[in-house]
């Protein structure tokens, strides 16, 4: 066995707090190590060349690279040694950067720890076996979860590239949050006018299969071969027969139903089409408000429907679709107003959220685009905007910035002046965050051309006084308290992860952060990938972002899928579980513990039952190896012998 050890300085990242030359010198004393050296940047081209040359010159057959996390460069070095003729699994990495040099300043202690860590890697490398990938077919269909602007962009780009797309949207129409907006910043172009055509394209594209009012119920499989169970929720209206005429909605007597599309700023009917441009334009019954469901009798819509589409007996339906990749564009949520008792916690009708105000501004909204305050349907003359309602507020558990509120407040202030020329807007802000193209000019325009008064300071409380809402806050530039008697108060409530985001992440086996936003593969270099092969991200599911950024991510995710699907066959990871049929006793406990359903029963010729791992399904998590009572199931590349060799090394003194 001839092991070569390469210690990376990573500039000063590692060499700053670890004596790398000493680590290399110590390694030369280890039995089996034929060559050890240290180098400034092992991942650079000359660094990799040195590995290749050393393999040939020193006849090395196992390689240890002590550098950064294997997450960062394991693949890089595997390719390097493969080019020099070694099996890629003869590489072992010791993570002396994230695990050692970055976390301690004591150089001597770090160096000792690094020596032990590299010795462990050497011991493991000497036990490494050659492994070979299998190749398997790719199903070139893609699932897009979420029909907002990011998801639609991803779906259209994939479909235009010739891929079959399954688009699942949980609400009754595609369009997402963007469909609710009135105008968009910084151009003040009508949101639905630019989004509507895209929605129609989604509906009419022969490569896109849309499941509206549906949710992803279950995901099985792996990159290239997923089986998706989609739950089509009961709408109580047969969408094949429904023509979207809207007659049912006019006659429905349950007039006080909560309007999800309008965020409850006005009531709707129990049977409704969410908005005029809805895709698909079909009616749906809300059983929480429908008299037929609540009281057991009514049936008005069934009588009025000209096509007989109403079906009160409808049940949820499960549909299975097979795909090869998944784009997650499940969007965002907004923090509840009851988080703000100092602003009335939702008790005052004239304190509303930004998205509710958006609906009041919108021509297809409940007030047909006339700004009328909810309490008495009068036109407000003084409107106060409160930015950062929840955002950047640790006491709310939301330390992050919600990204687009500064911009939409400026837009809403401009639109308020357009709608009501004798109105005055006030904006309470912490900072104005407007870093996009044309954004800062836009917020200046709101102040300079439209006369919005910007007050730098937080609002401490809002209370009603007669017909007015008194907004009490600080002006930190003047150093005084201010009170504004407003007719309407708009809170820019913080962006949160979409409801149910963590549960969906668990189905997808992708990671999410403390706040429920999905974690990208690398914050800079892999912004739309996840750490799960075949699953990509787009839009606000990954973090708050505005429309251009969401659209950009939708397209980026689509191009990643195109690249994945450019090959007909994919290579499997051979670092998966393997059963030793000679020692397996057939207890099949591994079948019960496998979270991926990768272990199956197998009958040998003599009739003996053993476990059998389906290599392409196995994710290599190792749960089965811990379960097996007789050590018959072993995770390749992480076998008991390999791990024990490492343990022995650190236990020897």
């Amino acid at each position: 066995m001839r092991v070569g050890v390469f210690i990376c300085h990573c500039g000063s990242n590692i060499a700053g707090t670890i004596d790398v030359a000493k680590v290399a010198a110590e390694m030369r004393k280890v039995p089996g190590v034929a060559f050890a050296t240290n180098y400034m940047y092992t991942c650079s081209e000359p660094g990799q060349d040195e590995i290749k040359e050393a393999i040939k010159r020193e006849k090395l057959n196992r390689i240890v690279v002590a550098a950064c996390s294997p997450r960062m460069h394991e693949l890089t070095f595997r390719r390097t040694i493969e080019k020099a003729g070694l099996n890629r699994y003869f590489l072992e990495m010791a993570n002396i950067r994230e695990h050692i040099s970055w976390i301690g300043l004591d150089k001597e202690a770090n160096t000792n720890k690094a020596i032990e860590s590299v010795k462990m890697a050497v011991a493991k490398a000497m036990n490494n076996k050659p492994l070979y990938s299998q190749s398997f077919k790719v199903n070139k269909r893609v699932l897009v979860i979420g029909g907002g602007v990011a998801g639609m962009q991803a779906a259209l780009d994939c479909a235009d590239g010739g891929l079959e797309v399954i688009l699942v949207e949980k609400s009754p129409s595609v369009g997402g949050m963007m469909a609710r907006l009135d105008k968009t910043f910084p151009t003040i172009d009508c949101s639905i006018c630019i989004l509507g055509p895209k929605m129609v394209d989604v509906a009419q594209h022969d490569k896109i299969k849309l499941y509206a009012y549906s949710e992803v119920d279950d995901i099985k499989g792996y990159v290239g071969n997923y089986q998706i169970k989609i739950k089509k929720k009961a709408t109580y209206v047969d969408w094949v027969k429904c023509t979207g005429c809207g007659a049912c909605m006019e006659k429905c007597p349950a007039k006080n139903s909560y309007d999800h599309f309008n965020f409850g700023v006005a009531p709707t009917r129990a049977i409704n089409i969410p908005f005029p441009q809805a895709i698909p334009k079909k009616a749906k019954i809300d059983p929480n408000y429908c008299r037929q469901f609540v009281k057991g009798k009514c049936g008005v819509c069934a009588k009025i429907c000209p096509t007989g589409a109403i079906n009160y007996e409808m049940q949820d339906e499960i549909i299975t679709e097979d795909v090869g990749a998944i784009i997650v564009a499940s969007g965002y949520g907004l923090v509840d107003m009851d988080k703000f008792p100092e602003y009335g916690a939702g008790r005052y009708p004239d304190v509303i959220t930004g998205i509710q105000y958006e609906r009041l501004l919108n021509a297809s909204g409940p007030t047909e685009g006339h700004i009328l305050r909810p309490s008495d349907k009068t036109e407000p003359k003084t409107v106060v905007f409160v930015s950062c309602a929840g955002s950047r507020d640790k006491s709310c558990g939301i330390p992050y910035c919600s990204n687009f509120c500064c911009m939409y407040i400026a837009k809403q202030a401009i639109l308020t002046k357009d709608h009501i020329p004798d109105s005055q807007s006030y904006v309470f802000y912490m900072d104005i965050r407007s870093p996009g193209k044309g954004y800062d000019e836009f917020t200046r325009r709101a102040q300079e051309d439209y006369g919005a008064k910007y007050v730098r300071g937080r609002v401490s409380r809002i209370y009603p006084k007669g017909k007015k809402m008194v907004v009490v806050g600080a002006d930190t530039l003047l150093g005084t308290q201010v009170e504004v008697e407003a007719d309407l108060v708009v809170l820019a409530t913080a962006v949160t992860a979409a409801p149910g985001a963590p549960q969906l992440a668990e189905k997808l086996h992708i990671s999410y952060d403390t706040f429920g936003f999905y974690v990208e593969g690398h914050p800079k270099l892999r912004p739309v990938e996840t750490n799960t092969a075949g699953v990509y991200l787009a839009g606000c599911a990954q973090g708050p972002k505005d429309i251009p950024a969401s659209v950009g991510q939708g397209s980026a995710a689509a191009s990643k899928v195109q690249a994945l699907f450019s090959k007909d066959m994919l290579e499997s990871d051979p670092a998966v579980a393997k059963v030793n049929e000679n020692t397996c006793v057939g207890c099949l406990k591994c079948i019960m513990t496998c979270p991926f359903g990768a272990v199956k029963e197998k009958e040998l010729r003599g009739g003996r039952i053993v476990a059998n791992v389906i290599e392409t399904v196995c994710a290599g998590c190792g749960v089965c190896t811990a379960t097996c009572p007789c050590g018959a199931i072993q995770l390749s590349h992480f076998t008991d012998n390999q791990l024990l060799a490492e343990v022995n090394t650190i236990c020897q003194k």
Partner: protein
Amino acid sequence: MAEREYAYYSGCSLEGTAVEYDMSMKLVLEALDVNLKEPEDWSCCGSTPAHTVDHVLAAALAARNLSIIEKMGTDTVTVPCPSCLSAFKRAHLGMAGDASFKDQVNDLIDEPYNGGVISKSTLQIMYEDIGLEEVAKKVTHALPDLVVAPYYGCILTRPPEIAQFDDPENPVSMDKILEAVGVKVSSFVFKLECCGAAFGVPKRDMVNRLTAKVLSMALDSGANCIAVACPLCQQNLDLRQSQVNALMGTNYNIPILYFSQIVGLTYGLTPKELGIDKLIVSADDLIRSRITVEELAQNKAAAEAEEKARKAKQKEDKTKTEET
């Protein structure tokens, strides 16, 4: 045999400017079968003057009392004054959460405090321990003319991690108690607004402006009196009302009652024993309307009968006109 027993720490205000709070609170709790035990040799709670100088000293002053109560064998002390309550809770929570702080405090006092006492306001025991149902059962009288603005003051429910009672921004316990005894409560949004507290001494004008806002909002809410649970709030709103009028050119004349006085009135206790005569702004005119619940029921029945007769007559008149 009393149903419940608590240690009762009245604090300095309730022996002086707020003696009527003490009188009325004790009578109301007695009516509710609560036995109160006064700790022997109690001393200052360590409120405002001490904690502006030294937190250990402030906690020690409070802990001395808590230690006495702990030795009485009572696990709960009920405190009418929010300032005393806050001092007790701060000391208790501070000592429970930090062993070195606890040692520093215990070093200053003769008998160590081991953290065995729960402090609750009298409002909290009425609302949570006794319960609205029991509170309502003792009512014998009604106050039909009263519309009360319930005023909680700043520290009864805040900061939430110390007070651990009711909603920190929109408390409802006093509202609910007053409603339970049949009193009309106005929808008052300045429940927690600052009364000016102890700044009445160094910055009287500022306090007068703050109190003026509270009084004006109470009137705007349709109330004709304010209920309080804090001696300092009562003093600023009641004693300073004439100063407010002089400074602001207003003409406020709003009685400021302790919530216990109002509850006591509905329990049939006399204004004299509840210390109503000790208020600066007289509440006499308002409470003169007090009647028994039986009278109230009779009046209500009579009013209903009258209304019925009126409607019947209207109907009759209508039919007559139709006939002609």
